[in-house]
């Protein structure tokens, strides 16, 4: 059945400057890159996600509050200047329109941030990864977005640009303010993400879903650890599908930082992470599952980092 998406206009831009000029003139326009979230959202808004109903403009919510006006889109997917992935000294700079498949297979990403490569490789399916972009994964701001915990432990800085305000650099946790919310202004475009790379980190990324592919994550954990001898010299822990917005879980990090690594400390870090999730989110329908499972995942990820350093056996 033929479906016409509720789209009034797709402006195909040829440069970032041209894109910014378009956004400045069309404050309601939305950037379109891979479309794997945006086009699903537009279709859902129009008539339900699973069955195309011509004329059935009432969504599952009965149409109340749904914005049914056709969208104006700015197609940035063809901008080569936004697709670059490059190492800049110790920094890794990834263009906002780098495709998730490119992030997953990039040697630079594998070298500086293997957690991010793994996160990118677990997004959707091959077909989704071939279209979806890292910038889109950030700006869609799903609490279960696969890349966000990996970006959070690498202290990602998001580079926004607008015609009026020039460049604005925000930490990931500042840009993403809540589920599906960012503080980007309507005329701003995310152009790049910068990661602190650096060697010496032991890294772990774990993702639980109901199946391996094509599933929204139930929980994600990303951990970076640096050891001096057996002492935990530095540690960064983040989790996805556990908090409203990306963040590092400081109480869990405190359980490990500056002390010799031990399995007891790993367990304590896991429990601290789970307590922090409950403190921030309250008791939800999923808490009975997520609290013990987040604790176990953080413990296991920390032990994986220690095992890579030769300080623990590989946790099964």
């Amino acid at each position, binding site marked *: *059945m*033929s*479906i*016409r*998406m*509720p*789209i*009034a*206009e*797709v402006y*195909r831009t040829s440069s970032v400057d041209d894109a910014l000029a378009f956004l400045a003139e069309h404050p309601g326009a939305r950037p*379109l890159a891979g*479309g*794997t979230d945006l*086009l*699903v959202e537009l*279709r*859902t808004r129009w008539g339900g*996600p*699973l069955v*195309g109903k011509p004329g059935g403009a009432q969504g599952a919510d009965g149409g109340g509050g749904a914005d049914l006006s*056709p969208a104006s*889109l700015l*197609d940035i*997917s*063809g901008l080569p200047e936004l697709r670059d992935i490059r190492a800049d000294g110790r920094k890794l700079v990834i263009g906002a329109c780098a495709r998730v*498949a490119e992030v997953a297979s990039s040697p630079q990403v594998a070298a500086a941030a293997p957690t991010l490569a793994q996160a990118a490789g677990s997004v*959707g*399916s*091959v*077909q*989704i990864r*071939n*279209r979806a972009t890292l910038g889109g994964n950030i700006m869609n701001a799903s609490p279960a977005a696969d890349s966000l915990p990996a970006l959070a432990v690498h202290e990602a800085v998001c580079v926004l640009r607008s015609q009026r305000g020039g460049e604005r650099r925000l930490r990931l946790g500042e840009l993403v303010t809540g589920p599906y919310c960012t503080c980007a202004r309507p005329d701003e475009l995310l152009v790049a993400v910068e990661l602190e790379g650096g060697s010496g980190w032991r890294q772990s990324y774990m993702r639980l879903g109901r199946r*391996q*592919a*094509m599933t929204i994550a139930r929980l994600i954990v990303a951990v970076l650890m640096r050891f001096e001898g057996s002492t935990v010299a530095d540690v960064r822990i983040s989790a996805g599908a556990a908090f409203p917005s990306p963040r590092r879980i400081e109480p869990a990090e405190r359980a490990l930082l500056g002390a010799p690594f031990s399995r007891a400390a790993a367990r304590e870090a896991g429990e601290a992470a789970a307590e922090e999730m409950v403190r921030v989110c309250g008791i939800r329908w999923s808490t009975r599952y997520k609290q013990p499972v987040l604790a176990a995942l953080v413990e296991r990820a920390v032990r994986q980092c220690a095992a890579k350093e030769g300080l623990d056996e590989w946790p099964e």
Partner: protein
Amino acid sequence: MARVTLTVNDRQVTLDVHPGERLVDTLRDRLGLTGTKEGCGVGECGACTVVVDGDAVNSCLVLTVQCDGAAILTVEGLAPAGQLSRLQRAFLEHGAVQCGFCTPGMLMSATALLARNPRPTREEIRAALAGNLCRCTGYEQIVQAVEAVANEAE
């Protein structure tokens, strides 16, 4: 309306398209290439998979206006003179087709894989087909068919 030029199965076509027109609809309704199927319409099932510039994509999640200048391969392009491709014959030999609805998408995902990696491992085949659902659950025969072609590669 926007004018786009596509190369579909080695044939160049120029069309005026509505900005909200999806690639799957252009292929099926305007070019008559109904081999590409639409299942879920939201990128979950892979039935609408086609190969765009070498990449397997869900044609239900691509706007045709985004494909200006692109080379698109659909299942019809696998057998241009009515001669089945090696992969298609392997599907028949291994009983990898049951109801057939997922078959074009499976073929296109596997074709994109084999073009890039002519000798994939079983794990690589499974990963490449993870975005294609088969409601008849005939996955084993499908993987075997792709494996058979991979094992013949130089």
